[in-house]
């Protein structure tokens, strides 16, 4: 190597730290360590119980080899169908209801009071976990698919409405201006300037939400809202691991299938 110029020889270099202030750096490091220690101490691991459960875990994994689709075949089939129509009906109704609320949440289309009411309604429906809503509706409507249907509808409104509102706000404003200039009424403006711009992505979101609703239906069944979740819960309660394994596999396969389907549909729409 060529000889080293005296001005720079021997000058050390270390990578500059990400956080410039040394005090802050140490505080964050110490804070993280203290938190982790505290968190691990309060984990309350019960080794005896784990040792006992180990054998059960092995039986559960053993359930996958081979899974038993037959013994509870009817229940699984019914459960899947129930989940599917619950998800479908909830997606349709949810989207229909979310359109007025979504439009109401678009700042460029409605007066502020309407905007605030719609936005807060959507915020609440999105923030509450589905399973909590399901518990509430099961209390109100009794066990079964109706409670599940209402729960999924409720969740769909929040999800779809928010995305719809954001899409409308982000869409090109120029056509809207043009329509207004042409003297179009509010509904006409919606139909001609907003709908065509928002439609393609909305269909994509709708299909994705259908997929999500199906997956969620597997969960809310556990608290009594019908569908494949209820079947799964029963299988676990009776320690029928091969059947439980079969149900889990069915869920994975349907989710995979719907993922391919939604990718396909989105390509079609585009």
């Amino acid at each position, binding site marked *: 190597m060529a000889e080293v110029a005296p001005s720079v020889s021997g000058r050390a270099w270390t990578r500059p730290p990400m956080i410039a202030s040394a005090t802050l750096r140490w505080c964050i490091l110490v804070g993280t360590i203290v938190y982790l220690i505290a968190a691990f101490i309060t*984990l309350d691991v019960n080794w005896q119980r784990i040792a006992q459960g180990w054998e059960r875990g092995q039986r559960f994994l053993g359930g996958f080899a081979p899974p038993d689709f037959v013994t509870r075949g009817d229940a699984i089939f019914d459960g899947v169908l129930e989940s599917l129509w*619950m998800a479908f009906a909830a997606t349709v109704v949810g989207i229909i209801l979310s359109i007025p609320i979504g439009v109401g949440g678009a700042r460029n289309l409605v007066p502020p009071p309407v905007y605030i009411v719609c936005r807060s309604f959507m915020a609440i429906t999105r923030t509450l976990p589905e399973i*909590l809503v399901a518990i509430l509706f099961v209390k109100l409507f009794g066990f079964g698919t109706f409670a599940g249907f209402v729960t999924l509808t409720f969740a769909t409104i929040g999800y779809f409405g928010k995305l719809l509102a954001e899409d409308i706000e982000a869409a090109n404003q120029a056509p809207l201006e043009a329509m207004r200039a042409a003297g179009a009424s509010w509904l006409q403006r919606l139909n001609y300037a907003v709908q065509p711009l928002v439609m393609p992505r909305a269909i994509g979101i709708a299909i994705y939400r259908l997929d999500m609703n199906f*997956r969620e239906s597997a969960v809310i069944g556990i608290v009594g809202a019908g569908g494949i979740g209820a079947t799964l819960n029963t299988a676990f309660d009776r320690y029928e691991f091969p059947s439980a394994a079969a149900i889990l596999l069915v869920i994975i396969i349907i*989710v995979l299938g719907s993922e391919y389907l939604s990718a396909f549909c989105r390509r079609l729409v585009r």
Partner: protein
Amino acid sequence: MSVQTTNGLREWQRYDSKQGLLRWTLWLLGVAVFVWCFQKISAGTEWSFVLDAPEQGADIFDRMIPPDWEYARVLGRPLWDTLNMATLGTMGAVIFAVPLAFMAAQNTTPSVRFARPFALFCIVASRSINSVIWALVLVMILGPGVLAGTIAIAFRSIGFIGKLLYEAIEETDHRPVDAIASTGASSGQIIAYGVVPQVTPVFAGIAVFRWDINIRESTILGLVGAGGLGLELNASIGNLDWSRVSVILLAIFATVIVSEWVSARIRKAVT
């Protein structure tokens, strides 16, 4: 534009007859499927229960108010457990998701024939099963408690973080990677210098985003016995103690909103 005056006519002419027929068939099919679905649902519904729902609702609401504020003091520990499940679970998920993502990404995978399909399978399996179901399984094996919840959160998050991260890895700019390769760097060094700096900010965003989702999920895992706020909720609902239920619901609501705010702030800072 003269569109408004001929509104109906124009609308009708928008598609030629073949296209129009197809659209109408699809719509009809959709409506038919929906009606059939709804009949199935209503067949399994006890409508008298549904009809008296407003009364029931009013009754429950009456009992929820006023909330039992005294009870809020007891919620400190469950809240702490909820936070821990989400945080430790996310950390655990990151430890497994990062190597899986590098195995799954086309441009960094060590072997297209073995490592990649294996990693993709792990990611898909983890993603398809909701954390509540993971918790159900794990509570059965490990016993009720925070540990089962933490692992359930981790299992579900591996797929989420893994998928988004491997997509980000596949989208990295190949030019700096070529440049690093041309210096004679080993494949490990190419990843460390060429790929990692490019995906770090994306990765931080994904992890924080998942942490935020995990907070929401861990508030309810207790319903199947995995500790945290959900456990208290389950007990209170079981005892029909609605004034306590309202306190817990408020606590969950507040936690979720705060975590959403924190996560949004951090994500804005890293990108």
